[in-house]
């Protein structure tokens, strides 16, 4: 559609920008992670891997790392992908108002700003005035201070709710790539629902499931919005890595240490991405 020359002419600035905005920040981060750069200190000096030593000997860092992995495993892999796949299969080759309603509600969940959602959740889970405790009260149980007593559970459910729609829509499209005749052949020979899942759906959706897990793992790993709900607390019970970084780098201006944490997150993400890519390539 466009000649090579024109394309190059337009692309050069784009490439320069990408280089500046993507490649350079990565190196910049790595460089700063080896300094004691901070708005509190006077001058910036090269201190080698000292930031990383501090990090790896810090209980708070390990706490954040472990929480992050917990958060990803339960909210993304089990929650979003699992619920999404289940819903997609329930509605596969069905039509009707119920399917439309669920799909529209799923998409509608994206219309609402994270701030508002977090706000509604905070209200919903509030100890004294929250709807949840009022419902529980009707049945004669005593309410719980959810955000303080099961904070990790709260942000996990919150993230499942935010993300299940994506996986559901992705798997809904994915199921459409399997020709109906594959299911009908199975019907004619008398395959059960479990046979169909095991012999048709899972093997043929491997790639989609891999891509979905890759995306939602990375998104969840990098998610900052749980901060709105719990602020990382109570104590450090929900201080996942992005929130930990925020505290270090932005709140307390320890830029050198923040850069070191960023570098570690980048490393984990790259590793995860490569693992998934490898899995997808093997297919």
């Amino acid at each position, binding site marked *: 559609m466009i000649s090579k020359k024109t394309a190059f002419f337009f692309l050069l600035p784009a490439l320069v920008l990408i280089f500046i905005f993507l490649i350079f920040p990565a190196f910049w981060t790595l460089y700063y992670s080896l300094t004691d750069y901070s708005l509190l200190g006077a001058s910036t000096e090269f201190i080698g891997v000292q930031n990383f030593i501090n990090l790896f000997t810090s209980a708070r860092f390990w706490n954040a790392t472990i929480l992050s992995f917990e958060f990803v495993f339960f909210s993304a892999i089990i929650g979003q992908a699992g619920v999404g796949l289940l819903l997609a299969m329930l509605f596969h080759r069905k039509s009707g108002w119920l399917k439309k309603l669920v799909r529209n509600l799923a998409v509608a969940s994206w219309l609402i700003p994270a701030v508002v959602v977090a706000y509604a959740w905070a209200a919903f889970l509030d100890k004294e005035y929250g709807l949840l405790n009022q419902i529980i009260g009707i049945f004669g149980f005593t309410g719980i201070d959810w955000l303080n007593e099961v904070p990790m559970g709260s942000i996990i459910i919150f993230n499942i709710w935010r993300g299940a729609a994506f996986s559901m829509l992705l798997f809904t499209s994915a199921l459409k790539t399997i*020709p109906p*005749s*594959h299911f*009908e*052949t*199975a*019907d*004619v*020979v*008398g*395959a059960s629902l479990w*046979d169909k899942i095991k*012999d*048709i759906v899972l*093997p*043929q959706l491997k790639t989609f499931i891999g891509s979905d897990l890759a995306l939602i793992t990375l998104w969840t790993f990098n998610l900052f919005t749980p901060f709105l709900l719990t602020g990382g607390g109570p104590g450090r019970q929900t201080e996942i890595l992005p929130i930990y970084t925020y505290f270090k780098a932005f709140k307390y201006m320890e830029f050198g240490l923040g850069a070191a944490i960023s570098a570690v997150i980048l490393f984990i993400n790259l590793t995860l991405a490569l693992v998934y890519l490898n899995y997808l390539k093997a297919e």
Partner: protein
Amino acid sequence: METSVKFEDLTKEFEDVVAVDHLNLKIEKGEFFALLGPSGCGKTTTLRLIAGLEQPTEGKIFLNNEDVSSYPPKERDVAMVFQDYALYPHMTISENIGYPLKVRGVAKEDRQERIKEAAENLQIGELLDRRPSQLSGGQQQRVSVARALVHEPSVFLFDEPLSNLDARLRIEARTFLRHLQKELGITTIYVTHDQSEALALADRIAIMEAGQARQVDAAQKVYHEPADTFVANFVGSPPMNLLQCRVNMEGETPILETENNTISFTNLENRLQRLKERDELILGIRPEDMDLTLNVDQDEQLTGLVGEIYAVETLGAQVLFSVKIGNSMIRVREMSSEKVSQLAVGDDVSVEINEDRVLYYDAEDKALIN
């Protein structure tokens, strides 16, 4: 003969469409039966009703004299071959063929033996360890037939199984299927929109339109005596010529007036009765039952059908002429010969009709007049 499949008033409605409309049919044991019709005629729905993939709105289906209308697919003892073959891409050919046995819990050694047998029947014994993507279209087609064969069904259901193959392979696969079915003797119901495929393969054909069967007859009969103008126009390539005309009785001699010609036939006795009492008729004449002659003298007053050659097309050993007669187009198929090769576009020609082969259809209900 024993009946293998029977429909009683079989009806299937989808929301506002009647796909199959009170269909009554009997298919004999061992018969190769084709459901032929244009898209949307209900032929595939009929097949899916037999398989149990759709539930009839009304009516009954009998398989081997048992009412199976409410049975789930697996209890019907049928096997289906789909247009896209429906092979599982992640399984080997052997696993694909054996899948129906595995689902039914057949033991592994027994399975291996029956897979081998089915594969040899289909001449794909050497492909068992490959995957579907490594096979040609024709080979995939055979694998899907082998998978249908392996659970020894009492009825085979084919849904346009050859339409994804190219022209050359289609002819080969057609011959092979025809041979295999005769050898195995399993009742086969075959859905297609391709009239040449139905003619070539089937013992009997049901030509369907709008959920109903317009004619159910042997292939030769469907071709030579189409029951109505719909069938006449659907079967044959090119189809039968249909000429509207008025009957004019000159005493005891019927004269047929077309748009701007008159036709009178010499051999009158056997036609007299059916022509006498009607005003309007449709003549049906196959393209091979006519002959062209060049009109050399343009001034001569001509009788019979006269017109101008509109196009000349080569059909291998034959030549197809389209002749414009008034506002109608008549197609004439001739063996290529010295004489024929002299006819060209724009020539004035007379069309001679092989009188014995002319069919008469009622202008009102479009049905064949016997």
